[in-house]
């Protein structure tokens, strides 16, 4: 029974990797990314890896994490196998992200959290309860609170205080303390990584004929999966170069596929069911507007990087408090404005709102998204799913219908344009 579960856990990753490698076999520089992501699903690696700090979710500013820890081990859920391991520890209606994250940390097969300090933000109901489950299981946990509103000075100060306290706790564990120099270096590193993320996104957009959507997602998420952020930047830079070269050498024109923006719950490796469905329905992902992309969109501006470390910290606080993920916020202004920016920039044909079962905060936000989309005459498709694969065929039918509708809309638009 145990080996069956372990195999299912590994197979899920292998299948996704195989698909990505087959679809993108022409990209030589891509190879490092599937290898990096699949590493996390190998017994040898999991039995030997001893991260100092495990970061649950991406709600904590990366600048703070890197200021006090060199190689954080990020856990972003994504795996059905680990979600199964946490079934008995969580209530039925728990969202798959929380289950999967817990399964990574408490399971019968490997123990990556033995020497680690688990770091997380209390951004949702599940998260606050995961903390108590982990503490009960004897894990070391350092958590920080996120005020749900950003408008008041009180909340800003509290958030800053929380960040400093958390950084001190991590620093105590790692021996690397929150100093002005460490913070400045971390900011530099994170800004560089985010810049690479953007450059890659731009090039992937123009070279969409050479790289699949799933591969784009994988490359971006390897920023969290890689053991070293510097290594990720080197490989992304090479991949950007390769895509650029391909773009220049082959003017590959894409047929008019509908472009969609995917927003809502993050789509995390290896569960790439949604991009797979979008591709099979003949659509392309123009951009992803989730908490991972939102985080990557934040970067301390160059002019602010030379200010005092205290003011640098204030800048990080104000940026992140405004843009932190939706579960933590009364109104998710950061996500709305990011979404609006993407709509203005990319002119998508449709919007796929991906909601993981149990993550109702995204569902609460749907009316705002629908209203904005309606004003811009963009159809919205709400896709609710979990990490299971049983619903793939039903979702495929719905997604195909959505794709066909978007294609028809494009044809009609073009005809109108021509006749005008």
């Amino acid at each position: 029974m145990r080996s069956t579960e372990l195999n299912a856990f590994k197979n899920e990753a292998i299948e996704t990797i195989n698909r990505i490698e087959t679809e993108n076999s022409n990209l030589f520089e891509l190879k490092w990314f599937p290898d990096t992501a699949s590493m996390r699903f190998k017994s040898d690696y999991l039995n030997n890896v001893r991260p100092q700090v495990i970061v649950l979710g991406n709600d904590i500013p990366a600048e703070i994490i890197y200021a006090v820890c060199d190689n954080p081990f990020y856990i972003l859920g994504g795996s059905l196998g680990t979600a199964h391991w946490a079934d008995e520890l969580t209530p039925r209606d728990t969202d798959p992200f929380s289950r999967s994250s817990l399964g990574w940390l408490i399971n019968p097969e490997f123990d990556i959290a033995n020497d680690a300090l688990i770091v997380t933000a209390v951004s949702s109901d599940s998260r606050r309860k995961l903390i108590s489950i982990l503490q009960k299981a004897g894990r070391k946990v350092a958590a920080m609170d996120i005020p749900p509103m950003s408008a008041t000075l009180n909340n800003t100060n509290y958030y800053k205080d929380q960040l400093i306290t958390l950084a001190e706790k991590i620093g105590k564990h790692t021996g690397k303390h929150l100093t002005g120099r460490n913070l400045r270096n971390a900011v530099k590193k994170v800004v560089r990584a985010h810049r690479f993320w953007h450059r890659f996104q731009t090039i992937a957009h123009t070279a969409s004929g050479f790289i699949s959507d799933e591969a784009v997602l994988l490359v971006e998420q390897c920023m969290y999966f890689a053991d070293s952020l510097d290594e990720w930047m080197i490989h992304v830079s090479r991949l950007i170069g390769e895509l650029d070269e391909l773009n220049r050498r082959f003017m590959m024109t894409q047929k008019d596929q509908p472009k969609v923006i995917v927003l809502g719950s993050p789509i995390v490796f290896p569960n790439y069911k949604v991009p797979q469905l979008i591709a099979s329905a003949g659509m392309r992902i123009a951009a992803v507007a989730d908490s991972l992309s939102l985080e990557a969109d934040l970067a301390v501006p160059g002019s602010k990087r030379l200010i005092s470390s205290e003011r640098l910290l204030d800048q990080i606080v104000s940026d992140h408090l405004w843009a932190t993920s939706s579960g933590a916020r009364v109104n998710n202004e950061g996500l709305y404005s990011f979404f609006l920016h993407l709509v203005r920039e990319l002119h998508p044909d449709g919007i796929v709102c991906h909601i993981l079962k149990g993550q109702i905060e995204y569902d609460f936000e749907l009316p705002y998204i629908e209203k904005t989309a309606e004003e811009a005459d963009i159809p919205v498709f709400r896709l609710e799913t979990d990490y299971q694969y049983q619903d793939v065929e039903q979702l495929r039918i719905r997604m195909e219908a959505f794709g066909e509708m978007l294609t028809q809309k494009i044809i009609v638009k073009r005809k109108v344009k021509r006749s005008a």
Partner: protein
Amino acid sequence: MNDYISRQGSAEDRRKARFLNKSSTTAIKYLRKIEDLPHKPDALKPFTDVLKHVFVDMQGAVNPQGVPSVGTYCVMIPPELIYAMGAMPVKLCGGSYTAFNVGDDIAPRDACPLVKAIMGFESIGVMPVYQECQLMAVPITCDCKKKLAGYLAERRNTIALHVPSGRDRDEDMEQYVRELYLFSQKLTEVTDVELSYERLSWACGMTAAAQYELSRFIELRRKYPLAIKGTHYMAAMNAISYTHISLWTRYMHNLCDEIEAKAKRGVMASKENRPRILITGSPIVFPNFKIPLLIEEMGGALVADETCMGERGAYDPPAIVDQSTDGIMRALANKSTRPCTCPTFVDNKRRVYRIMQMLKDYRVQGVIYHVLRGCLVYDYEYQVMEEELGKLGIPIIRIESDYNEEDVEQLRIRIEAFIELIKYGKGSSK
């Protein structure tokens, strides 16, 4: 055709009329059920009258002094502060099936029914108890309340209060103290009353009188767990949400006198051989009284209630050590969070200790763990309770329910079986 022509008013007016009609019908039904339970104390009438006033007569909160009403959505808002600022707190957590049906169309499918009911009430806009509130205070205690605060803020004068997820650090307490100060400023905008030591002290005195009566009642129940039906007690505790505290204190005083007199004469509301049940978990808000009613109809004695509509909200008095405005504010922040057994806190061992204490005090033989569908925080804590009660050999059952009556018969079977299990199994040997 004639019927169609004879319809008066717009479709929206008819919808509102239907809502009021259905809402009051449900309230009447449950009030009747509460009143029909045997051994109803005479002194319970003012409490049921309050519920009737609000949910049947649609008259709004019982507010004899005519001060502005402030809607609150959790026990973490100290009523002392609202009274001190010249307003009256009205706890607006919804239990209405009719409002739930309205809210079902607005809120996401998996949102909890309590929040759906609130959104339903807000959207239909006909319940005076909701409409007359000049300010809504929403402490952010769960994901649904978080989003509810955003929803209400678009429609009403609303303030959201950040409740820290930890409560043991001084910094967390400071944060809540600051939130309460911001809340007091908002209250000043509504009432024109400034925060002062005198007013806070006066309000604390008023709530202390209520707490005294409540503690007297709790003491009586400890001595005589079967002296009053649990459903009657829950109705009395629900009434505090919609009554001025000075009135409620008077009603509670009379209830205590009657219970005490009856208990001294040996007159009990339930027989000694009835399995004694404690209910805990998601709040039970009038008119959603199906579970307490089922417990008592099926032969159980509901002796204790560890929900936030029970004594949790009024049980702990503020411990004022510093006789100043700031001292009282700190005491209020402390009493609202530190002893609170709400699962919003990461570390909630206090709830286990509290329940253990109640098991002992009320000689409980079985625990019913109530989970409203979608109320994830309580669901997470079920496992802990199951483990702890397993060690004591006290049976526990998890009952998941929604705001409708469709599951009543299934719940009846489960509750009946649970009570029988206690009666003829383990419980009877105790």
